[in-house]
C-alpha cells in the first residue's frame, strides 16, 4: 500500500478509536477496539472487513467538510483496492485493477472474437446461423473443446485466487487452518451468507443515500445466490454428463435448466438493481477509481445471465450459434477476470469475517 494511503488509514483509525460512537454499527469498529496500533496488515484486514454500508459516514461528526475529513467508507474502499493489487498473482497482472473496466471489456471482447474464429475455423461459418434441431450447441462448439478451454481458464483463475487468499492470510497474520477450523467456519459462514454487516439489526445500510434501507442487501443476495444456483446448474449438468452419460442440452424442466434459469433471473435482477443503486450513490463516499471495477463485474454477471437465458429460449433458432459465441465469450471474460476484479472482494471479506470471529473468541477466552 502506498505511504500516503497508509498514513491516511492510520490517522482514520486513531481518530475513530478515540471516538467509538460507531461501535454499534458493524464488525470493523469492534475489531478496531481490540487494537491501539494499526500496522499495514491490520489496516488491510479492517478495510476488507468493511462492507461499505456507509452508516458510519452519515453518523460521523468529523466527516467532511469538518477539517479532519473523516470518511471511513471511502478510505477503506481505497485501501481495499490497493490490497487487491498487493495480493494479486502473478504480480504484473495487478495492474488490471487500475483500469479494470477497460481490461474486463477487452478480455471479454477478445474472448468473443476468439470463440467466433474457433467456430468458423472448426465448424464453418454457417454454424453461426444454422438452426440445430433440439438446440444441441455441441454441434457448434464441441464438448471436448469447451471442457478444455474452460477447464484451463478455471484452473488458472483458481490458482490465482488461491495465491491471493494465502497472501491475504499471511498479511493479516492468520493461517487458513485457524481461520477455517470447523467451529470458526460455522460462525463465518452464517455471518457471510446472511450478510450480517449490511443488515445493521434489520435497518439495512445507508445506501445509496443517507436513509437506511435493506434494498442493497437483498439485491446482493439475489446476485450471490443467483451465482451459486448457476454454479449448481453447471455442476449438476457435469454429473449428468459424466456419471449418468446424459448429454446436454436438457429439457426446460430438467434440474440443470431449472437451477440455471432461477440463478439467471437472480443474476439479472440483482446486478441490474445494484447498478441502478450505484448510479444514485453519494459521490462524497465513492472512490471514483473503483467505479470501473464495480461496474465491470456487475455488467459481466448481468450479460452472462442475459445471454445465457436468451440462448436457452432461442436455442432451436438460427440465432443460436451467434448467441452461443457471445455467451461463451462473456463467461470466459468473467472467468479470466475473477482474480483481477471485484470478484476477489468475496474471498478477502470472507477471510476477514473469519478473522473477526476468531478475534472475538480469543477475547472471550482472555476474559474468562
Amino acid at each position, binding site marked *: 500500500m502506498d505511504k500516503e494511503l497508509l498514513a491516511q488509514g492510520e490517522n482514520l483509525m*486513531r*481518530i475513530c*478509536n*478515540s*471516538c*467509538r*460512537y*460507531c*461501535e*454499534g*454499527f458493524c464488525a470493523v469498529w469492534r475489531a478496531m*477496539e481490540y487494537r*491501539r496500533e494499526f500496522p499495514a496488515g491490520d489496516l488491510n484486514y479492517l478495510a476488507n472487513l468493511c462492507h461499505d454500508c456507509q*452508516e*458510519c459516514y*452519515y*453518523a*460521523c*461528526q*468529523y*466527516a*467532511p*467538510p*469538518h*477539517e479532519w475529513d473523516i470518511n471511513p467508507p471511502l478510505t477503506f474502499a481505497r485501501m481495499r483496492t490497493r490490497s487487491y493489487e498487493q495480493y494479486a498473482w502473478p504480480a504484473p497482472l495487478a495492474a488490471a485493477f487500475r483500469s479494470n473496466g477497460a481490461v474486463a471489456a477487452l478480455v471479454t471482447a477478445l474472448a468473443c472474437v476468439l470463440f467466433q474464429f474457433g467456430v468458423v475455423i472448426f465448424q464453418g461459418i454457417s454454424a453461426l446461423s444454422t438452426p440445430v434441431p433440439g438446440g444441441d450447441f455441441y454441434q457448434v462448439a464441441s464438448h471436448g473443446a469447451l471442457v478444455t478451454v474452460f477447464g484451463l481458464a478455471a484452473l488458472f483463475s483458481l490458482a490465482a485466487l488461491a495465491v491471493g487468499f494465502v497472501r491475504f492470510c499471511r498479511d493479516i497474520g492468520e493461517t487458513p487452518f485457524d481461520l477455517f477450523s470447523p467451529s470458526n467456519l460455522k460462525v463465518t459462514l452464517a455471518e457471510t451468507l446472511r450478510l450480517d454487516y449490511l443488515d445493521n*439489526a434489520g*435497518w439495512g445500510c445507508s445506501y445509496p443515500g*443517507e*436513509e437506511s434501507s435493506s434494498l442493497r442487501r437483498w439485491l446482493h443476495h439475489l446476485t450471490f445466490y443467483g451465482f451459486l444456483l448457476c454454479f449448481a446448474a453447471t455442476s449438476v449438468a457435469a454429473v449428468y454428463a459424466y456419471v449418468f452419460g446424459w448429454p446436454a442440452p436438457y429439457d426446460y424442466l430438467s434440474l440443470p435448466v431449472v437451477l440455471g434459469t432461477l440463478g439467471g433471473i437472480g443474476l439479472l435482477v440483482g446486478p441490474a438493481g445494484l447498478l441502478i443503486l450505484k448510479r444514485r450513490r453519494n459521490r462524497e463516499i465513492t472512490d471514483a477509481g473503483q467505479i470501473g471495477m464495480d461496474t465491470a463485474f456487475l455488467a459481466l454477471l448481468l450479460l452472462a445471465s442475459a445471454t445465457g437465458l436468451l440462448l436457452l429460449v432461442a436455442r432451436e433458432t438460427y440465432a443460436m450459434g451467434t448467441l452461443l459465441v457471445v455467451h461463451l465469450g462473456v463467461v470466459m471474460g468473467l472467468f479470466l477476470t475473477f482474480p483481477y476484479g471485484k470478484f476477489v472482494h468475496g474471498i478477502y471479506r470472507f477471510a476477514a469475517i473469519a478473522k473477526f470471529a476468531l478475534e472475538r473468541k480469543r477475547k472471550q477466552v482472555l476474559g474468562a
Partner: protein
Amino acid sequence: MDQELSAGTDVLVIGGGAAALSAAIAAREKGARVILLECSPKHFRGGNSRHTRNMRLAHETQFAPYTGAYPEAEMWENYLKATGGEGDLELAKMVVGGSSSILAWMQTHGVRFQPALAGTLHLGRTNAWFLGGGKAMVNALFRSAERLGVQVRYDAEVVGLDVRAGRFRSAAVRIEGKTVCVPAQAVVVAAGGFQSNLAWLRQAWGPAADNFLIRGAPFDTGTLLKLLLDHGAESVGDPTQAHMVPIDARSPKFDGGIVTRLDCVTLGIVVNKNGERYYDEGEDFWPMRYAIWGRLVAQQPDQISYVFIDSKTLDRFMPSVFPPVEGRTIAEVAEKFNLPVDKVVATVEEFNRAVRPGTFDHTIQDDCRTEGLTPSKSHWALRIDEPPFYGYPLRPGLTFTYYGVKIDRNAAVIFKDGRPAANIFAAGEIMAGNILPKGYIGGIGLVIGNVFGRIAGEQAAVLSRGAERKAAV
C-alpha cells in the same frame, strides 16, 4: 424561498439541535405549520446535539438498551446531589418525570439505540445510547420532521426579533445574502448557549477565555439569548458557569468534539506551567471529576496543564486522538513541553517518594495513595518510574454555557416584570440554567431539551391554532 419565508407560519422554531427538533415535531404533530431555521450549513446542523451520545432516562424496570432499572427516585437523588438542589425544582421534577417517555418518543421518530459504548459501561444502566451517536440521532429527527412537513432552512441566521408588548411578531432572518422578515403566531427559541462567542466569553471570564477551546461548532454564538435578554427576558445562571472538561491542548479551536478528551488524569499527575501539582488527581472516579478538572485547568496560569504518566499506564485508558509526547526521562518530556525541567523532575520525585504501596485497581477506589504530600493523591497513585515517559498538554474545553433565560412550566419565557411572554417559548441549552445553575450529570442536557422542546412546541401550536380560529371568526 424568500416568499415562502416571508409568508410566515404558525410556529417558528429557531435552532437545529435536539430541543429545536423536538419542538418542531411536537408542534407539527399538533397540526401547526412549522418553519425551522438552522443557522449552520446542513453538514454542521444540530448544534451541540451532534456531539452527544446518550440520554439519562428514568426507567422503573430493566429493558433494552438498558442494563438495569433506574427509578425516577434515584434519578432525582442524582440530580439533587449534582446541583446541590439550587435549580428550579418544579421544572427539574418535570424533567426527571418526563424523561421516561423519551426513549419511545425518539424511537417513534426513527432514532436508533444500542447498549452502552465500550469504556462507558458504568452508564449502561442509567443512560440510553444512540446508535452512531448524536449526529445519527439528529439526522433521524430532521428526517422525521421533514417527513411530517416541517419546513427546514439551513444557513438561516436570525439577527433580530420583533417583540412588542411581550408579544413576538416576526424574526429578521439572514439567508442567501438577504434579510427576510418571517412572521409567526408563536416562536420557540432553541438556539443554544453562547459558548462559541469568544467576545462574550472574554467579557465573562476575562482574558483567560482566549485560551479556552470550544468543543462544539462555531455557530453557538448566543445571538438569540442576547436578543431575548435585550427584549427584557429575565436571565438565569451565571455567565461564568459552564460545562468544561480538560481536553488535549493540541485540539482545534472549535468542533474537536468527543475525541479530544483525555482520560488519563487519574492515572498520573497533573502539573501547571510552573511544574507544580495543584489538585488531587485521584479524588474520585474520572466520570465524577472530569467536569471539575476543566475549571481547575482554567484557573491555572495561562490556562494550561500537563499530565505525566509512564509506560505502566499508557494502555489503561481510552486511546487518545493525539499521540502522547514521549521521552526516555521525565526531563526529556518536560523539555519538549518547554516546562521548567528541574521543577518538574523534583515534583515527580517528590510524588514518587510519597506513594504508599497498595493494590492497584482502576475499577474501584483502591488503596494506592500518597502520604505526606500536598495536595495528596487519594487513589490510583502509582510511581511514575518506568520509561518511556509520556505527557499530554491540557486546556479547558468548553462544552456549553449555563447562562440563559428564565422560563415557566409551559416553557414560556419570563420577562423581568415576572410575567410570561404571550407567545415566546424557549427550550434546550438556552434555558437549561433554570434546572442546572451549576453541576452536571451526564446525559441530562438532551433530556431537558426534549422535555421542554416538546412542551414548547405543543404550547406554541395550541396558541397559534387558537389565534387562527380567532382570525377565522
